[in-house]
Every structure is written in structure tokens, then in C-alpha cells.
């Protein structure tokens, strides 16, 4: 039986980790490669690297990070942030990532998903969508709106409409990131996660708000998600991969067993 995945996201700026991240066995603090390796060895199922480098030169640095990760980390990982074209994606895949992650660029030009799926296969194309609660209107029948640039720009685009469209264009997986829940550590937005998971047939990853083991359990059961994304819970050291997984499998979910310690 297919297991539920526990995924973590690392923000990278100019080749270094952008958030404060706690290191267990530190060799090079702030090195995303070192951190990725630590999580890999702990039994994490998948990783996401989000490149928040602003400059053009940063792109080459990120590709170097991707190559170094691919040399040491033998689980799937995706790269997002700043990808605007099919050739950007091709470079990232060539460097060793399994998947690419589009967010704002796909909202601005949805055909990008179609082009990338045609070039690399839908299994390589992940759509990340940032969503916020909004008053129900004829344009926003679900009461959830797609936003870009970290929530600063509302798009007048209904979250469920967008998820369905993205799937039909070729997104092979959808990350539902709740801007309302993000950073609160009070739990994922179960409602929008479930509504999107029920509206599409591709896997859905819950993101934003995870702070306790119970939150992942809720997202993977009541939220109908196939995977849950964790960031600060792991990065700040309050939880471990093994601890999260032991909790989830203890509650009866199919979970990949971490390697024996």
C-alpha cells in the first residue's frame, strides 16, 4: 500500500539556508546540502528546495546546490522558486532534481504547466499554490483565493478552479499552501486541503501551519492529503523525522519506516 509521505522544505538564498535551522551534527551550518543529507539519513521521504535568491547570478549557485544534493541524497526532491520557463526547469532536472515546482509563474502563464508536462512528463511537474480565505463571491465560489508573492497579491482566482485547471494542464502533483495557516504552527487548513484533494485526482500535499504531530495526522486523514510538508517543526528541532513517523504509524497510517538507528 502506498505510504503517506512526510516532506520538508528548505529555503535557500545565495546557496545558503535562508531560515534559521537547527543542526544536529554540524559540519557546515547553513549549508542546505548538509541539512538535506541529515534529513535523508533520518528517513525523510522527499525534499523541496525553494530558491529565494533574487539575483540572476543566484541561479547558477542554486544549480550547484542541486548537483551536490543529488550526489548525496537518494530520495526524490523538487526545486522551486524563480522558475519561469521550461528551460529553467530543464536545467534543474538535468542537475539532478526529480521534479520542478511552479508557483507564481504558472498563475501568470498557466500554459507553462502544459509545456513542462509535455517536455518532461506530468510526474515532474508540481504546482504550488498559495491560498487565502476570502469572502464567497461569484468569482470565488469556494471562499478561497489564489495569491502570489507570499500573499501580497490577490489574484481574484478561485483556489479550486485553479487546482482543477492546473491538473488538466499537466500538473502531476499539487501543493496547497495556506497563507492564513503558514507560520502559525496551529495546524494545516484542513478545509481547503480536503476540498482540493477531493476536486483533483493527482496527489495533494498539505502545507502551512504544521506544528504538532497531530496536525500531520489531521491533514493526512481529514484533509485527504497524500503528503504533508513540514518546515519549522523539523528545522527548529522541536520534532524529529523519526518521531513524526513513529507517531503517524502508531496511529495506523501507512508510513515508510525510517532506517534503523
Amino acid at each position, binding site marked *: 500500500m*502506498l*505510504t503517506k509521505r512526510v516532506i520538508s522544505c528548505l529555503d535557500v538564498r545565495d546557496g545558503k539556508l535562508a531560515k534559521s535551522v537547527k543542526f544536529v551534527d554540524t559540519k557546515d551550518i547553513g549549508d542546505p546540502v548538509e541539512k538535506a543529507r541529515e534529513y535523508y539519513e533520518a528517513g525523510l521521504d522527499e525534499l523541496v528546495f525553494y530558491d529565494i535568491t533574487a539575483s540572476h547570478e543566484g541561479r547558477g549557485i542554486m544549480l550547484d546546490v542541486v548537483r551536490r544534493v543529488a550526489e548525496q541524497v537518494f*530520495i526524490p526532491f523538487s526545486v522551486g522558486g524563480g522558475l519561469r520557463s521550461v528551460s529553467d526547469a530543464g536545467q534543474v532536472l538535468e542537475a539532478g532534481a526529480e521534479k520542478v515546482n511552479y508557483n507564481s509563474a504558472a498563475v501568470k502563464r498557466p500554459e507553462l504547466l502544459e509545456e513542462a508536462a509535455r517536455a518532461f*512528463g506530468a510526474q515532474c511537474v508540481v504546482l504550488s499554490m498559495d491560498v487565502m480565505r476570502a469572502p464567497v463571491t461569484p468569482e470565488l465560489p469556494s471562499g478561497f483565493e489564489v495569491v502570489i508573492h507570499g500573499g501580497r497579491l490577490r489574484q481574484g482566482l478561485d483556489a479550486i478552479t485553479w487546482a482543477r485547471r492546473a491538473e488538466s494542464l499537466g500538473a502531476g*502533483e499539487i501543493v496547497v499552501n495556506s497563507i492564513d495557516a503558514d507560520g502559525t504552527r496551529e495546524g494545516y487548513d484542513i478545509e481547503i486541503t480536503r476540498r482540493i484533494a477531493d476536486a483533483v485526482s493527482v496527489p495533494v500535499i498539505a502545507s502551512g501551519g504544521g506544528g504538532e504531530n497531530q496536525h500531520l495526522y489531521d491533514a493526512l486523514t481529514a484533509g485527504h492529503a*497524500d503528503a504533508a510538508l513540514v518546515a519549522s517543526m523539523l528545522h527548529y528541532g522541536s520534532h524529529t523525522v523519526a518521531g513524526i513517523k513513529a507517531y503517524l504509524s502508531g496511529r495506523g497510517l501507512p508510513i*515508510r519506516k525510517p532506517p534503523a538507528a
Partner: protein
Amino acid sequence: MITIVDYNAGNPTSVKRALASVGVESVISPSADVVRDAERIIFPGVGHARATMAVLIERGLDRALSDAFARGTPILGICVGAQLSLSHSEEGDTPCLGLVPGTVRRFPELAKELKVPHMGWNRVRVTRQHPLFEGVPDDNEFYFVHSYYLAPADGQRVLATTQHGIEFVSAFEIDNFAAVQFHPEKSGPLGIDILARFARWQPAARKAPAC
């Protein structure tokens, strides 16, 4: 030295890196001559059956792989590489290499929560002992990404099965050829171990070909 077949089907570098992590040397090659004379071959791949078969034929790799198989070279097919070794694929109604009789089938309509592509970590139930799976624990998981599954004609050849709505073949072998549907290069330490065992695998001498 392992030769990894390059035919524009996904990224052969991930297999090379996984081998390097356990000290196994490999070379990625698109050349039929190199593949034909290889000491040991990994035939990986991600992509559409019809498109990838066309590249194999264009490069003469179809003949090279058949020749290498006939002369007893140990070969490991991974994902699309495993699928293309069978006779036919339902994906694009594509005639394949036919190293092993059998077909590649599309997953049937499954329950809503069972998605296709079958993507993620799933258990491999080893049904017959084989050097590649030596020491793999029963409660294992390997990484899969596929919409079509292996259906070798001869059930005796099956090494392992996996459940996703249906029970499908996740590994089989015939003499010097072994095939896995999952991606050992993306399956963490258990997957790396399979690659390391392949690098040491000495298949029994191949029976003389029929003609």
C-alpha cells in the same frame, strides 16, 4: 565497470551518482558499440514507451541490448528500462525489445483514493529469493513513479509484487536479466543496496540460445 544506457529517457546521472555513493564505477553511454561490449549494463529510464523505443532503435541500442543479453551480460532494467524489455507496451501500443515475453499494461480504473500514476513509497513483497533482494527486510518501501505495470508472460520469472489496487509485478528476472519497476536510485539506502548487489551479481551461465 557498469555501463548505463543513455537514450534520452530521464536522467541517467542519478543512477551514476547512486552507484558512486557505494564506490561502483560507471559510465553513461549512448553508443550501441559500448553497450554491446559492456561488462555489465544498467538500462534505466523515465518517459513514454513509444518515444523512448524510437530513440533506442535510432541509436541501434535495441540490437546492442539484445546481443548483450544473448551473450550473458548482467543487465538491470529500471522502470521504463524494465518495461521496454518485454514484448509490447499498451502505452502508445508500442512494440518493445522482447528480451522477455510479456506485456506492459495500464493500471485499470482504481478506487478514487488510489491514484495513477502510482507515485511514492510502496512495499515490495519478495516472492522468490534472488541475489538482488538478499537481506531486504519484509517491511520495506521503495520509490515508484509509473502509470503502466510489468506483466511478464511466465509467472515463474516473478521475483516480487506490490499492491496498488491490484497486485502487480514489481521485479522479475530471466537468467542474466533482472528488472525492477521501482527506482533503486531514489529509494534511499535499501535501493542503493540493490544497486550494490547488482554490481556484484554473477548470474548462472546462460542456457544456449535456441538457434
